[in-house]
């Protein structure tokens, strides 16, 4: 078997490599086995490795906008390992292509032969994955710590305005049709339908009418689910809290399910709950409120260029 690798043009044509039993261009034309593709903008490191081992090339040809090089079979493992490293670095460096390429440029200088290079690549992938996991765990710990501190800070506001939040009424449902039917008792058809759709993805969710109701599926364990109050604000006309529904793992935040503003209108004494985009998770409650009013975008940037004078009651 031979390993064919086709180098595309950055941002225009993906890179691909595969195994074939022929060395000619019919390998590429017949779309042989185990095709592995790397997006064009990330493929540059493969070109570096091809250059590094160009002496081992058996054949080369052009086909369908790519320059193909044919190598012995063991190069297939090399290119698979390089691709794994590319995608691992892509996650680790948060898609910063320059950092990925610099990392691989430094790495390729240490490669002497194919077998040694594969071994080093696998070790590097595992090392970067470990770093990535450590970073994620560190982030989860920091987020959990932040939520716990914020809960303490807002404890009085929650106790005074939203005592139900700490121990909400839980409504269990068997299926989503039943949930929608239940929601119709409190909300219009359209709102009930929208909450149902939201619950299908973000389950469990909460809704607020005269009180706060946690909606969870019949068989759903709530041991790993927590609602944190991340921020709060009280004015003469309203009291609001920014709440976050999260799934926990080993005592730390594992997945953010939703972010919402829970408030009470001090004129009407009416509770309100508005979900906001998860992109606002680290923002203040007041900024989330401005999103609800349509004054900022999903990232908290002002939507109007003019100065805004907001009068509200």
């Amino acid at each position, binding site marked *: 078997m031979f390993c064919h690798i086709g180098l595309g043009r950055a941002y225009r044509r993906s890179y691909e490599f595969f195994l074939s039993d022929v060395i000619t261009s019919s390998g590429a034309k017949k779309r042989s086995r185990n095709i592995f593709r790397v997006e064009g903008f990330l493929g540059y490191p493969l070109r570096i490795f091809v250059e590094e081992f160009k002496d081992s090339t058996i054949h080369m040809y052009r086909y369908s906008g790519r320059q193909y090089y044919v190598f012995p079979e063991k190069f297939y493992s090399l290119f698979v390992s390089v691709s794994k490293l590319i995608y691992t670095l892509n996650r680790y460096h948060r898609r910063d292509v320059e950092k990925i390429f610099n990392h691989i440029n430094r790495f390729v200088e240490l490669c002497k032969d194919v077998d040694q290079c594969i071994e080093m690549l696998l070790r590097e992938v595992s090392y970067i994955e470990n770093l990535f996991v450590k970073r994620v765990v560190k982030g989860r710990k920091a987020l959990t710590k932040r939520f716990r501190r914020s809960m303490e800070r807002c404890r009085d506001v929650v106790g005074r305005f939203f005592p139900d939040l700490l121990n909400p009424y839980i409504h269990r449902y068997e299926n989503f049709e039943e949930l929608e039917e239940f929601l119709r008792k409190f909300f219009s058809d359209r709102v009930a339908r929208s909450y149902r759709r939201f619950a299908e993805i973000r389950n469990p969710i909460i809704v607020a009418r005269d009180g706060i109701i946690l909606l969870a599926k019949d068989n759903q364990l709530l041991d790993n689910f927590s609602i944190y109050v991340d921020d709060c604000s009280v004015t003469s006309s309203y009291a609001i809290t920014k709440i976050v529904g999260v799934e926990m793992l080993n005592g730390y935040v594992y997945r953010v399910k939703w972010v919402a503003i829970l408030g009470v209108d001090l004129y009407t004494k009416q509770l309100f709950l508005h979900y906001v985009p998860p992109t606002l998770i680290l923002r203040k409650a007041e900024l989330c409120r401005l999103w609800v*009013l349509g004054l900022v975008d999903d990232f908290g940037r002002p939507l109007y260029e003019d100065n805004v004078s907001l009068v509200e009651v």
Partner: protein
Amino acid sequence: MNKTRKIYRQGDLILVEEEGIDTNLAMKEGDILEIASENGNTHKLISPVYSLYGRRYVVVKKPSTLIHPQHPKLVIEPGIYRVEFVRDYALNRSID
């Protein structure tokens, strides 16, 4: 210096001041803005209402009062205002 855009909010109803709206192109809906809240009460403003490209506008010619049984009155300064409602990520659209 940028002009100041006036925005009024009474409960779930938001009025956003807009410039450059030609009401000659718009369809007149009526002479009173009436928006029913989810709890059955109504926001009311006596000013002509127009609709243009799927949006509603209210033209306030002299200072007028927006009323709602549960909220304090709100005096709206003259101008053309786009009628909006609070947003909700779960409901995907404004609540109407």
